[in-house]
């Protein structure tokens, strides 16, 4: 009985060796397997170490109180999360992020669409307008933020002119708790509408001309041609741009720092600037990770539901 087992074991091991070498020869034609072993690991390693692992670690660290030195040892269960949701500044940050999404959907994207509809045809004037409108998008957020910090400055810039015209006191809008975030929203629209406009223009240029001609022949008005023909045909572009604007809104950070840095009295934080101020600058690894986890969950839930419902229909 035991003999049988060993012989079977031996036989299968030699045959498996042969199998392996045969399998290798069959699959390694043109050095296919060697190429794979050379080509795949760099990306796999980099991606795992710097993108995937940190997300898992954020979840783990968020259960500790830890300053980042030594090993995390002070297990505090969910108290970081409890503290987070009790913190008024965090509420404001969430609410501000929500405002960015709202303004994107209600003002920025419609503005981009209207402009795209009026300049998508090819002509030199339209190219010039396209160029101008896209310009803010390629500027770095920190530079754009500084430019607008000047524009909004109460002693210089547009706000100075404004209060001068009204003959009122100087108004430092970025230091005004009630208005600072409105000012930031203006800058956000300024910075990003050109990007969405370009997505719509690319989509509109792909709409077959004969469809629009046909609708005109059928007596459709300009407005009807836009509403019933063009917009439905660029719906995939619109869903993509909504996707990007919401995902972008959740991650707004660079623009906040030069404009207000989150102040006055933490009234203009977004999720990421909140994370930066209360997690990173104070090296509260546990608390900051908890903010990161909340951000991560928001993004993933949004991305998955959006892709599995709205984007799926359009494909």
């Amino acid at each position: 009985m035991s003999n049988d087992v060993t012989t079977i074991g031996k036989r299968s091991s030699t045959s498996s060796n042969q199998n392996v070498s045969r399998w290798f020869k069959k699959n390694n034609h043109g050095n296919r397997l060697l190429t794979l072993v050379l080509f795949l690991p760099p990306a796999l390693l980099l991606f795992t170490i710097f993108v995937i692992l940190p997300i898992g670690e954020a979840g783990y660290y968020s259960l500790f109180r830890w300053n980042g030195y030594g090993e995390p040892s002070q297990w505090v269960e969910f108290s970081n999360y409890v503290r987070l949701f009790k913190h008024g500044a965090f509420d404001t940050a969430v609410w501000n992020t929500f405002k960015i999404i709202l303004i994107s959907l209600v003002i920025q994207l419609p503005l981009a669409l209207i402009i795209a509809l009026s300049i998508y045809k090819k002509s030199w004037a339209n190219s010039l307008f396209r160029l101008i409108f896209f310009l803010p998008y390629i500027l770095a957020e920190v530079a754009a933020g500084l430019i607008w910090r000047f524009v909004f400055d109460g002693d210089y810039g547009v706000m100075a002119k404004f209060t001068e015209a009204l003959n009122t006191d100087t108004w430092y809008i970025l230091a005004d708790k009630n208005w600072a975030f409105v000012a930031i929203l203006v800058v956000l629209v300024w910075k990003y509408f050109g990007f969405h406009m370009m997505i719509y223009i690319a989509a509109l240029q792909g709409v077959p001309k004969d469809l629009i001609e046909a609708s005109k022949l059928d007596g459709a008005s300009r407005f009807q041609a836009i509403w019933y023909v063009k917009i439905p045909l660029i719906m995939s572009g619109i869903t993509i741009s909504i996707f990007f604007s919401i995902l972008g809104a959740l991650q707004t950070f660079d623009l906040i720092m030069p404009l207000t840095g989150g102040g006055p009295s933490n009234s203009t934080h977004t999720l990421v600037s909140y994370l930066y101020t209360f997690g990173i600058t104070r090296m509260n690894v546990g608390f900051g990770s908890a903010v990161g986890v909340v951000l991560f969950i928001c993004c993933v839930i949004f991305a998955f539901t959006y892709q599995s419902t709205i984007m799926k229909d359009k494909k």
Partner: protein
Amino acid sequence: MLAMRRISWGKYIFLILVAGFVLVPMFATVLGGFKSLGELRTNPFGLPVVWEFEYYAQVFADGSIWLLMKNSLIIAFFSVLLTIIIGTMTAFTFSHIKFAGYKYIYNYFLIGMMFPAAAAILPLFLKIRDLGLLDSLSGVVIPQVAFGLGFSILLFRTFFEQLPAELFDAARVDGCSYIKFYWHVILPLSTPILATVGVFVLVASWNNYLLPLLVLNTEQQYPWTLGIMQYRGEYGIEWNRILAYVTVTISPAIVFFLFAQKYIVEGLTGGAVKG
């Protein structure tokens, strides 16, 4: 006819208003660097009455601006190079080697695209520190490459799969190895997508602020995005100096945009739409 003309007049007035909204802050920035503080206060948006050149001159005077630009350029160059090399290699394994289970690995990379880089920024920072990359340019480059991989692999793979299959079959019949095929056929044929991804990574890297802010401590390593914030910190509300500085630092991006417009628009929006 009359109604048509009225619509098109209204359209142009509207477009010009929006163009004003976009351009006035930029022109004010460029011109502001030529004004004295007193004039900037009374005349923030118009042409300067007296052109002052000392503020622009002073931006270049201490030479630190060249160092900032050089650091930004080094970071951007290596980010683009590594993203393209590693991204195309990986995409090639999905498009042509098609090993068992490659779809799972491919999806693994795609999922990463949805992860906001900021969410795990603290653990990422600790990782960079523990690997000894803190305060070095590679500490910025390597994570940037890692975060650009999902998006670039997606675009590269889509492009490689659209190349004619006959090419590959013919090459294999002639005994061409996979590596040679990748190097002599795939890469030369892929210049449009290399440019698209390259431009995207370049702009993202050039403008990146959060990662260098965390990783770099010494001023000799700063990219221009950190330099500009520091300059602003130094000069407070001397807006003419700051505006001159902003103008100088953003002009490379604007010049690049004017020359490579087609690729930039393609890289920043086309890539998004195709994805």
